[in-house]
């Protein structure tokens, strides 16, 4: 131990003499005495090899900004990337609130000392419940894929069955997470994953194939609305009926930003609902803005299967006053270790606060407006792109904000086309050609409320130029 020449701004006791004063107070001659529990041969032999210290804020800022400047952003470029992270408008108030140090820094306090945070959490669940038309919403887990994984495991525990049906046209990113949660088959409690074929004409689930695969061993059917490739599942109520008739649970994934214009999943028979929280006021953050919610009806057989934090209203000892706290805390892994429902821990709870602020700003009319704007602009974009020679759009009249653009007739690969677009300041849609979906040289384009008609015309014009 060598004393510092000057104190570090983040360590009060690095001020000269502080460490020595505490050592003197506890009667230790040196640090080695304080570390008496660690056997000598446990101490590391290799010296640390770290880049030089940047103790001043000025130097640190310079290093960070110098590196970050090498990124190109979706603000300076025109981006059509989506597929699990989407470019939506984030109101300034949301950033102010989630940046508040009381919310951003701390871990947990008590229900009283952190009353404000608990209320904000409850308001996230309450407002999302109003969009879903469901009474129970858990605080978000790590991601949408993780939410689906937990939801499937909830259904498996509830039904005692070990098979789940998913759409063949699933997002490989989410599907990989779901496989992690359900497989491999050799493990105790594994859940078999069976894929349901799409209807080639619409991209929706093929109900005949679904019927054939729905047996008494199926715990759940999971489908998305809108689905990975943007398609709207108009037969949702029928899927839920078939699933219920087989004694299985209907799990639906929804995009919450669609719910001002699309039917609430609670109204078409969904038993458990999942979805992403990032569209509700969280920046894309290079994928670090994701989180996933899980919701259901308020029935104990569902409530008792949740893995994480359920924030409930509670009375206080002062009559008429309301507080908030965690319902059913003993069923999670904090309460029961390996006997709890799956596991929980730090998650993405700051994004619950972002979502609460976002939903309160939009209100019912804001959600109706943004939903209509997104679907209108996306449909228009699909029309404009489809007019470009050699370009075809799959299922053009069945989508919400994403749609599949096929380039087979251009003779070029998606990678080549996207390279050319990028040189002109446009990030083309996600390349689907390597995903084994049988869609050839296709890309998944995403259009939201941030894309004006002029942006869309520019995209179509640029595409036609780079394809010449």
């Amino acid at each position: 131990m060598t004393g510092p020449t000057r104190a570090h701004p983040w360590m009060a006791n690095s001020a000269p003499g502080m460490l020595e004063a505490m050592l003197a107070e506890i009667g230790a001659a040196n640090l080695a005495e304080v570390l008496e529990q660690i056997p000598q041969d446990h101490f590391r032999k290799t010296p640390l090899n770290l880049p030089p210290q940047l103790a001043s804020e000025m130097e640190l800022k310079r290093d960070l900004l110098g590196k970050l400047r090498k990124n190109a952003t979706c603000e300076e470029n025109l981006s059509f990337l989506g597929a699990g992270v989407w470019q939506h408008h984030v109101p300034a108030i949301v950033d102010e609130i989630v940046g508040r140090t009381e919310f951003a820094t701390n871990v947990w306090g008590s229900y009283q000392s952190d009353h404000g945070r608990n209320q904000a959490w409850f308001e996230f669940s309450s407002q999302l419940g109003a969009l879903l038309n469901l009474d129970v919403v858990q605080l978000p887990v790590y991601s949408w894929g993780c939410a689906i994984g937990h939801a499937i495991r909830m259904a498996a525990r509830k039904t005692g069955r070990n098979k789940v049906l998913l759409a063949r046209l699933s997002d490989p990113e989410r599907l990989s997470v779901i496989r992690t949660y359900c497989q491999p088959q050799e493990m105790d409690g594994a859940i078999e994953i069976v894929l349901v074929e799409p209807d080639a004409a619409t991209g929706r689930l093929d109900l005949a194939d679904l019927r054939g695969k729905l047996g008494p061993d199926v715990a759940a059917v999971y489908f998305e609305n809108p689905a990975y490739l943007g398609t709207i599942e108009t037969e949702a109520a029928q899927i839920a009926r078939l699933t219920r008739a087989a004694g299985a649970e209907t799990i639906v994934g929804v995009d919450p930003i669609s719910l001002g214009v699309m039917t609430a999943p609670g109204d078409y028979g969904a038993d458990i609902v999942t979805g992403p929280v990032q569209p509700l006021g969280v920046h894309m953050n290079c994928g670090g803005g994701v989180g996933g919610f899980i919701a259901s009806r308020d029935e104990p057989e569902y409530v008792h299967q949740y893995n994480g934090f359920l924030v409930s209203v509670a009375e206080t000892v002062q009559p008429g006053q309301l507080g908030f706290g965690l319902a059913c805390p003993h069923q999670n892994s904090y309460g029961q270790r390996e006997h709890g429902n799956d596991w929980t821990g730090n998650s993405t709870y700051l994004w619950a606060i972002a979502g609460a602020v976002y939903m309160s700003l939009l209100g019912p009319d804001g959600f109706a407006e943004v939903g209509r704007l997104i679907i209108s602009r996306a449909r228009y974009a699909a029309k404009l792109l489809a007019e470009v020679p050699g370009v075809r759009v799959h299922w053009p009249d069945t989508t919400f904000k994403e749609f599949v653009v096929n380039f087979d007739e251009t003779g070029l690969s998606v990678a080549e086309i996207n390279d050319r677009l990028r040189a002109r300041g446009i990030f083309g849609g996600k390349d689907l050609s390597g995903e084994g979906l049988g869609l050839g040289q296709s890309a998944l384009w995403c259009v939201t409320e941030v894309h004006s008609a002029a942006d869309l015309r520019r995209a179509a014009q640029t595409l036609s130029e780079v394809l010449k």
Partner: protein
Amino acid sequence: MTRLPNFHAAKWDEPVVMELGRPGGRGQLFPAPEAEIAEAVGDNPVPEAMRRKDRPVLPEITEFEAQRHYLHLSQMTLGMMGVSLFGTCTMKYNSKTSEFATWRPQIAEVHPYQHPDTLQGVLEIMHDFDGILQSLSGMDQFVFQPGGGADAAYTMTAVARAYWADRGQLGQRTEMVTSIQAHPCNPATAAAAGFTVINLPLEENGYPSLEALKAALSERTALIMLNNPDDMGIYNPEIREWVQAAKDVGALCFYDHANFNGVMGKLSARELGFDACMFMLHKTFGAPKAGGGPAVGAFGCSAELAPYMPAPVVAKQGDRYVLDEDRPKSCGKIREFWGNVPQVVKAYAWARAMGAEGIQLASDISVVANNYMDHRLAKLPGIERSNPDVTKRRMEMTRWSLAPLHEETGIGTVEIANRMADYGIDPWWMSHEPWIVPQPFTPEAGELWSKEDIDLWIDVLAKIMQEARENPELVRTAPHNQPIAQVKGDAFENPSKWAMTWRAYLRKRDQAAAQGAA
């Protein structure tokens, strides 16, 4: 004694947001689709079968009202703006320099599927930070995909499955061995991954015996998951022998480095023999905890295990940074994308601002500060240190017990935590389940809190213990200076009373009123 603060929290008596506003009130407007769009696609392109007919019951408030409401809620969150010696979570200062850097569009408005040429800055940071963690742990590769410490433990179980599957022993290696005091996420994630959990009981010296471990190990053991030091502040000096014993049966060894703060720069997980470890970037590495995430459990492992890690992995090819997705033996994804990138950037910034010398000094300070705290706490009658037979100095935190005071006054750890908030002190961490130590509390000073903060904290505790003896009702009914009074717990396990949304609350309230009227 320090002068104790005459504190009172903000108390706005704030309605639930659903109660605010007026019909037609607006906080955010969106433009109508342009005329050319409306002409091309019509008024409402949503298929008739899926059109929403009802109006979601959401607040209708102004932009200012939303701002004011949520600022009120933030003000009614003590949020570490007192003194928070929240043990096991290592409270740190979260640099606003790095926070503001990540709010810039170069992170905030970046999509993970952008072409790597447009992501060179963030990939460079992740690559450099990987190198920093490699040096601190001796591991060969890190990934940042896990969304917290528990998710990193889950990653370990997934990596173990892929490792054993590759060796054709998946159905045979079915067991995970850990200690009863390991963080619950270790047994819980192993169980969720399909392993059978074996919990070793503690012996008198505070950790399970090597003999018990050896008895539990067999050709069925897939992995062991350990933390060291533990939450009592006890370091298991036989950890090398533990790792060796596990290796003797072929098992993988995972070091849950949640309690890294006291041993940063002092120990190397790899030198101790571990195959893998995890660091909590939202804890040890100065990224904010955000009230429970977004967080990062950085997962690192040896070159032998690296092929089984989740993809993608950040790599450097010449002068260029790339995302390596082509990893055929990978366990698959733990979570979508590459992790909570802003938190990784903040952790990188923390490590750079601290440097090797700062990190080592922080670890020294955290151990000395805890021993200073122990030294003062030991003089307070009514509390006792966990594992009183372990007389050696503890590491960066110590679990204490209020059992004597509780026996004397009926006042326990929950009541004291509530009362401490009345003095502006953030409630303490008690203990994970199971409570092996009765009436536990677990303070941890780390390198952030000053000696004066620690003194104030102990003085407040001493004052409340005095109150417990002289006026126990005052403590039992605490808090008194907080935004709300003590929350009653009767609704939390009662389906007719719990309400996880406002609509559920209104329904149950009306039902109860109707029943009362009938």
